[in-house]
């Protein structure tokens, strides 16, 4: 248990930039989804586009995973 906690703390500290990068993108897409849905409902009555679902999926598989794979020996 002690080993696991120290491993977890160490990885958490080492991955700080990666967490900033990934979670900011997630937050951006979900935030935009809310903003655009509200604006569309209030002003345009337009058909919604699931920007968060599409954006996060595309980002995760097309951007984050290849970068993480390329960085696997260079954290």
């Amino acid at each position, binding site marked *: 248990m002690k080993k696991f906690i120290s491993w977890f703390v160490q990885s958490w500290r080492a991955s700080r*930039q*990666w967490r*900033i*990068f990934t979670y*900011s*993108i997630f937050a*951006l897409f979900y935030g*935009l989804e809310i*903003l*655009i849905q509200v604006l569309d409902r209030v002003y345009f009555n337009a058909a919604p*586009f*699931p*920007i968060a679902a*599409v954006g996060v999926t*595309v980002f995760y598989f*097309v*951007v984050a995973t*290849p*970068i993480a794979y*390329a*960085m696997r*020996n*260079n*954290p």
Partner: protein
Amino acid sequence: MQQILTVIGLASLAAPLVWELHNDRFGDDHLSRGVFKVMSKRLDVWTRVVIAVLVSLINHYIAGASIVASIILSGAIHFFIFDYAIAALLGRSNWFEYLGEKSIVDNVSFWRGISPEARFVIRLLVLALALVIYF
């Protein structure tokens, strides 16, 4: 169907980024441009612009998106991802701090002087603005 076309159109806006990553995969110092015996930097930029305009026209045709907004979003995607992706591709350990040496933006002293986190926030804001303009 319309939403699938919208997604395809959006994904195609990353074409300049993909092309530039492929072009710079061994670094940007070489002059391996085949028949084009011109300064590589200038040719790189213009090829990117041409690809961006082409995919924006396609996007306008298949998804009905604005051409200008598409070009802006395409540039913002490139601006946001390129430095991180190329640093990872070239195997640099400092992927979050990495900056190119030759481009104009990378040599503005303000841009070089601020912290990597601040650069990331600026990139993120540019992408957010482009997405808001696009949608």
